[in-house]
Every structure is written in structure tokens, then in C-alpha cells.
């Protein structure tokens, strides 16, 4: 498949990105005014949250989270006990990756009579973000996408498929979202293009930088202020040696205040030999990350870990943050990140501790002493960098609620932990393949 999907060839235009961002900012301010006039008015808080979410996502305004915290405190002041407040608190907590809090607030909202659809929708998002109940989430996502065919539902499905290593399915889902889009807001289009960039640039076993760069560029074409797309494209340019192109992408967004921009710019400047400027940018990045982590640790733990594991040059801090992230949401990506950092740091003890965390913490984790017919092939799908084969036998039935059909065992070299979040049952088959574990929907980790 090629990334040559041409947005301009679609039979519609979208609103110019600069106009859309100006309108978003103006509507955001107005929604705050309305909220101040009457915090409990129907929809007032929801609109603010929606605008702040868009501002955070597409403009990269990290202070949006602080403003949402303020909104929550105002709502609590006005009506702490209502289901409505609990639902907003859950949304806010979810945005800040405080998922345990979000679940708690959501339970309160549900008990208090919040609309079931709203509760379920947010619960799906939280489960997906935390990498738990993914089989259930996938079923629900497919159903919702089929029923409503809304772009946002398709993006959520594509994102989940990507999390579950169904790369081509994810690509197809994203493309379906693009081709079905008939509205004029540039935000959704830019979002899908960005997701496709991440898919092909970061998630697939063998990243395709050129293809990813095309998608990021399309996202920027549609929405020039799209900070995340600019940063990701700048990373690719940096690794390709296109230093001035990378710098040109980052300079216009430096004032927004996201420390990741300073970090990437420092890398670019460093590669250009402008070491004093680079050091200055790196210092801004470091203090920026620390400030963010101080205010919203869980929201930025993974970014902070990435920073400190990279040019931030503090592997201990990186590992601490990665572990915080894993404990908060033990997704495949979080575990991969933690594993990479622990491995790079040569910290076997922490790696072992992480392993324990995985065993304890992952929603539907199965410590599967199992084996598979095409284990190595499956494993290649899981991890392009490291694989340690496994040995085992386990009955999945009690955990997954399947008929009890223990897998026959093949052997391999080393122990493995599989976090199994999905499976399929072939139409025909022997006991061996009666339950075929879809490794592409599972996460592996293996620690020597």
C-alpha cells in the first residue's frame, strides 16, 4: 500500500488550518466565559473540555491540562456530588492519564445516573489506553464503527488495531476514515494522517520512515500548527540528516511551550554543531519536562522517560518514569519502553522487578507457559528487536472463559511471559490449534 492518498483529490476542501485554529481558540475562550457565567449550565463544562482537548491535541498547548484541572475545581465547588461533575472529573482524569481516578469517578457517575452511553464510551477509552480488556474493547469498537461510521470511531478502532499489531487492518481502517470524511473541519483529517504516520513510522516492526514522513507532511499541510506532527516529522528529518528542514519545522512552534520541541531542536542544533544553542534548548527542555512532570506526572511519564533515555541523558530518571508509566498503564508500548530502557541501562534487577509488575499489573495477563506451532514466526511479529522463546503449557480456559482445551506443547529455549489479550478459534483443528493465540493481539515480553 502506498501513502499516496491525496487529500487534495477528495471532492471536498477543508477549512484552512489557520482559520480553524483561530476559530478554535476564539470558541475556547468563549466557552470559558459561558462556563464562568454558570458552571452548572447544561453542556457548559463539556464544551470547555472539548475545546481544551482539541487545543491540547492539535495546537500542543500543554497548559490545557492545567485549565481543565481548574475547571474541575470550579465544578466541584459548584456541585461536588452530582453525576455530571463525576463524569467531567472522569474525563479530566483520563486526559491526565490518571486512569484509576478516572475509573473511580466513572463508577460514581454511573451510580449517580450519568448517561450509560457516556459512561461506556469513556470506559472504552480508558480500557484501551490501559491495554486491558482489549478483546472486549475491540468488539465494541468494531460495532460502534460499523454502526455510526464516524471518523472518530474509525480512528479509535484503527488505533486499537495498531496497538494489537494488526498493522494492515489499522491502515485500512484509517484510510476508510479518510475516504469517508465529508466534513470541513481540518482537525479530524490531520488526526488520521498523523495516526498513519505513527503507524508506519513507529509501530510497525520495520518502520517505513519515508512513508511516515509523507503522512506527517499531509497532517501539517492540512493543519500547519499541528505540533505533534511537526515534532515527529522533524525527528525523521533529523535521522535523515535534513537538519535545516527539521529546524524549520520546529522553530515556528517553539513558543507554544512544549518541552519536546526544545528537546528535538536541541538535537538538531547539536547535529549542526551549534552546541551552545543546543545546550540552551536542552536546558529549557529539561526544566520544561520537570515542570510538567511535577504537575502531571502520569500524563507525561512516557514522554519524560523517552526524553531522559535519549538526549536528556539520565537513564535512572528515565527508568523511574518508565516504571511509573508501566504501573499506571501496562500497555504493550509502555512495557516495550520500560524494557528498552532497562536493557539499555543494563539493569537486570529492575528488569526483573518490571517483570513482576507485568505479572501483577496487566489486566488480562496470562503467565502462559505455553508453546505454539509457529512460535518463532509469531514472535517475529511481536518484537523486531528481541525475542526469547518460551516453553510452556497452560490452560487458558479459566482465564479467558474458553472451553478447557490445554495447548499441546512445543518447546523452545527460554521462558516467556505472554500477555494474551485476544485469540481466535479456528473453524477446524486439532487440540493443538484449537485455541490459536493471536500474538499480534498480545504483548510479549521476555526477560532473561
Amino acid at each position, binding site marked *: 500500500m502506498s501513502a499516496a492518498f491525496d487529500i*487534495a*483529490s477528495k*471532492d*471536498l*476542501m*477543508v*477549512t*484552512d488550518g*489557520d*482559520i*480553524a485554529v*483561530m*476559530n478554535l*481558540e*476564539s*470558541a*475556547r*475562550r*468563549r*466557552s*470559558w*466565559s*459561558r462556563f*464562568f*457565567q454558570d458552571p452548572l*449550565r*447544561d453542556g457548559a463544562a463539556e464544551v470547555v473540555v472539548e475545546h481544551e482537548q482539541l487545543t491540547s491535541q492539535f495546537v500542543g498547548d500543554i497548559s490545557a491540562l492545567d485549565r481543565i484541572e481548574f475547571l474541575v475545581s470550579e465544578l466541584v*465547588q459548584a456541585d461536588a456530588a452530582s453525576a455530571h461533575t463525576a463524569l467531567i472529573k472522569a474525563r479530566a482524569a483520563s486526559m491526565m492519564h490518571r486512569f484509576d481516578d478516572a475509573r473511580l469517578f466513572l463508577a460514581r457517575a454511573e451510580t449517580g445516573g450519568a448517561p450509560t452511553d457516556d459512561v461506556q464510551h469513556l470506559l472504552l477509552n480508558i480500557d484501551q489506553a490501559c491495554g486491558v480488556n482489549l478483546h472486549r474493547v475491540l468488539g465494541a469498537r468494531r460495532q460502534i464503527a460499523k454502526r455510526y461510521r*464516524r471518523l472518530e470511531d474509525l480512528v479509535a478502532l484503527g488505533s486499537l488495531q495498531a496497538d494489537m499489531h494488526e498493522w494492515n487492518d489499522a491502515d485500512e481502517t484509517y484510510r476508510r476514515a479518510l475516504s469517508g470524511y*465529508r*466534513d*470541513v*473541519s481540518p*482537525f*479530524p483529517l490531520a488526526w488520521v494522517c498523523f495516526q498513519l504516520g505513527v503507524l508506519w513510522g513507529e509501530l510497525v516492526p520495520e518502520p517505513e520512515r519515508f512513508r511516515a514522513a509523507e503522512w506527517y507532511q499531509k497532517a501539517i499541510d492540512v493543519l500547519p500548527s499541528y505540533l505533534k506532527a511537526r515534532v515527529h516529522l522533524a525527528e525523521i528529518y533529523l535521522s535523515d540528516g535534513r537538519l535545516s528542514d527539521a529546524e524549520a519545522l520546529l522553530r515556528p512552534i517553539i513558543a507554544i511551550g512544549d518541552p519536546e520541541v526544545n528537546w528535538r531542536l536541541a538535537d538538531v542544533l547539536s547535529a549542526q554543531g551549534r552546541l551552545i544553542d543546543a545546550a540552551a534548548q536542552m536546558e529549557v527542555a529539561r526544566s520544561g519536562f520537570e515542570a510538567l512532570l511535577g504537575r502531571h506526572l502520569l500524563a507525561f511519564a512516557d514522554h519524560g522517560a523517552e526524553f531522559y533515555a535519549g538526549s536528556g541523558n539520565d537513564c535512572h530518571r528515565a527508568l523511574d518514569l518508565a516504571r511509573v508509566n508501566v504501573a499506571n498503564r501496562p500497555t504493550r508500548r509502555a512495557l516495550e519502553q520500560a524494557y528498552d530502557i532497562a536493557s539499555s541501562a543494563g539493569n537486570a534487577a529492575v528488569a526483573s522487578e518490571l517483570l513482576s509488575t507485568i505479572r501483577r499489573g496487566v489486566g488480562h495477563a496470562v503467565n502462559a507457559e505455553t508453546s505454539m506451532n509457529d512460535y518463532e514466526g509469531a514472535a517475529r511479529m511481536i518484537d523486531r528487536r528481541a525475542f526469547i522463546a518460551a516453553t510452556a503449557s497452560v490452560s487458558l480456559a479459566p482465564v479467558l472463559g474458553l472451553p478447557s482445551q490445554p495447548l499441546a506443547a512445543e518447546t523452545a529455549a527460554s521462558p516467556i511471559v505472554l500477555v494474551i489479550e485476544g485469540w481466535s478459534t479456528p473453524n477446524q483443528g486439532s487440540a493443538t490449534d484449537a485455541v490459536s493465540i493471536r500474538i499480534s493481539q498480545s504483548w510479549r515480553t521476555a526477560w532473561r
Partner: protein
Amino acid sequence: MSDHIDGPRQIGDPAGDLTDLFAFTSPENPARTVLAACLFPSAGADAMFSNAVSCSIVVRRVAVAGLGDAAQFKTGDQESRFTCRFDLLERGPPGGKPVQRGTVTLPNGQTLRVIVNDKSGAATPDGVFRIFAGLRSDPFYLAWVFAQRMRPVPNLLQHDNVLCIVIEFDTRRVLDTDRGALFGVIAETIPLSPTSPVGPPPLRLDWVGRPEQTNMRLNYGPGLEDIRDLWNQQTPFAIASEHRGMFLQRLKESFAHWDMRDERQDWTPAALSANANVFLDDYLIFDVAKPITDTSHLEIERSTLNGHAYQTGGGRTVDANVIDILLTWLVNHDREFLQGGAKQATKPGTKTFPYFADPNMELQSMAESVDLDAGPDRVWTLLGQFDPSWHPLIANVRMIGSGIGQLRSIETIDGKQIVERLEDIDNSRRFYRYSNISGIPASNYTGIFEVNPRGSGSSVVWRAQFLPDNQPDIVVRAIVSTLFKTGLGSLKSRFGETR
């Protein structure tokens, strides 16, 4: 509310969301007619038109084709179409806002360029047409909530702005009134297509005829399937035959629901059915040969449904109280006028072009807080009496009255007089709200003072929202900020500051 945010698709890009449509005689010149469409609910101060949306106002001839329970209007096939498109932003003057221009294509194919927010608008050389496009105070007002029972409330759109397109023209020359004076008008927004004579046409974003077709009539209660987007994609003046039955049924159910909102049945089934038939064909009807006034809205439809000839020009003026007129008609069949909680919009319309009032300024918000090393109850004991004698910038205070409505007349140490009114107080939540009556150069000033627990101590938050009044924003903000900061700062020494 009217046509504001009337479907999921509108929420994606509010610049394509039509809020209202107007048709009235020019207050400046009775020989001219004004058609106007508003977009972008709750537009902020910097809102601009989308460059990817075309907005059209379309007029067709209408004839009365039946009276009473057989009431019906028929429209002609020919239409007069005004289509507006807007450009990308241009860099404005140094330090200024960007500039946007638009092009209006007139029914005769002529085009006219306009500069967005230029109050004087643009006119054709012969003076037949005059156009304005830009931000205005939202003329719509809705002052009801429709929970279990209908309850009047203050205007829910107070201080809101919208983007307006105002088209004024010589009535006789443009509408050819020798052939009849009764017309129907709609406005629609359609995504622009960059290519393509082939392929399906882009889906319409929104269209509007009479106010509240979507939000109140088709989507009248919770739990209903949301058919507003489907409605918005219908072709105005030509609802798809395969959907007419479904929409008609929804309208009948809706009207039966509205009829019983006061627990009294005022509509016969036949009249209710006729009403649904008339409202299904959704266009704003106006007669340019009769007076269009603030109260003539829907009179043409109502009279026709009541079985007699209409008397006014119907239409919709800027100040028409359309919600109360509609509710009165639907709920009690004009038995008793239902007055909502507001009698006008934030700002009334004007008598001069472009007839829609200047946009509302953005309310300024300010907040200051201090964390104190004392429990909230102890702090509230001092601060919670609405009496600000504790404030170091205040020389004298005179309290007048008690409870809600209490006034505090303050003399500051530099001799200024400030009068403020207590609007709300809750000792259990340690919170009060007040308004400024005089003394601060601001209008719509609302202050909130609250003490919250924080750790073992407390947090005092003081905030205000206001419109600067005849003073630059920065001046008013400086005054308020000084009051807040000095006041809260003084509490640190009194109670100790949390570290």
C-alpha cells in the same frame, strides 16, 4: 436553540453551522428587503468564516394553496440565490488582526467583494445590493429550560456572538414583486468542492428555514433517534420523498408532545396534522407587500392554518421573539402568550445597516488565590461576612441591608467609592458571589470569593468576570488585580502562608 449546534456534524466545524435566518424590511428604507443568515454559535471575538464552506441564501416564490386543516404552501421552481464564499486570511496591519475577504455571487451572476467585519459593507455600483459579513452580537434569545416542566430563565445566549451575512436589496428590482409578494427563504451551508463535476455532490452541512425546525421540532425530547443530520442533508424546498413520511411522523409526534407541555390539549388531531404538514416544508415565509414587524413572525402560517387570510408580512426581524411566538403556538395554540425569562437579546438590533448590533466584547476573567496556614472555617469567620473591612485598601465600609441583596458601600484609602451587591452566599461551602454596582469601570461585573480547605490549611480564591467599560482592558484589569492581590496578600501576615 434556533438552529444552533443542530447536529453532530455541525459540532466538527462551527463555521458551517447556521444558527438563524432573517427576512425583514429595511429599517432604513421600506423599499428594500434584508435577508440575513448567522453562523457559528458562540463565536469568539476572533472568529472567521471558513474558506471551505459556501453559504447561500435562497428565495423562491410561495403561494397559499389551502386553508385551515387543508393548509398548504407551494413554492415556485425558480430561485434567487445569493452565495457567499470566503478567502484565506490575509496578514493584517502590524500588530493587528488578520483580514478576510469574501465574494458574494448575486442572483444575476454579478459578484461583489466584501471585507469581513467592515461595518459599512459593500454595495454594487447601482446601489441595488448591499452586503455585510462579520461578527455581530447574537440576536437570538432563548430564555426557557425544558426539563420536566418549562421554566423561564435568563437568556441562555447572553453575550454570545455569531458570524452574520446581511444582504440588503431593492425589493422591487430583485424580487419582481409585480408577479407576487409572498416568498420563502432558506439558508444553507455546503462544503466547497475543489474538483469534480463528477462524483456525488458534497453533503450539505446545514440549512435553516424557520427557527427551531431541528432542535425543538424534530429533536423534541430525550431518547429519540437523532435525525437532525439527515434533515440537514435534505434539499431545501424538496424534501426527499422517501424521507417525507418519516419526518412528517416525527413532527406530528413532536407537536403532540408540545401541545401537552402545559398538560392541556389545545390542538385537535386534524389541526395538529395540518400544522405538521405546513412545518414540514421548512422555509421562512415573508410577504414584502405587508408589514414585517417584531411580532409578525409565523403570522402567515398561523393565520393560514387557522383558516383565514394572513395580515402581516410574517418574516423575522432582528428583534423578533421567535421562541415565545413559536412556543405559544405549539403549546397552547395562541391561547395565552408564553413569555420566557428574557424580552430581548443581549443587544437589540439597530435601525441602520447592517442592523445587527456590534459584537459583545469578551468577558474578562481574573483570579487570584492564596494558600493560608489556617483552617477554612477560621478564615471564613473573618472573610465570609461580605464586609471587606479586613482589606488594607479600604478606609470605610457601610453595609446596607442583610442577606441576598445586601449592599456594601466602600470608600477606598484613595477616596474612591465602590458599591457592590451580594448576589449569593453559602456559608456551608464558604462562598459568596457579588456584583459591582458602581465604582469599577466595568459592566457585568461578577465577583466570587471562596475559601476552600487545602491540606491542613485553606485556600482563598477571589475571582471576577467583567466587561471593561469605557476604559482599556489593561486599566480595568490593573484596578481589579491590585484589589485582589493586595487584599489576599494581607491575609498572609494575618493567618500565615502555607509553604
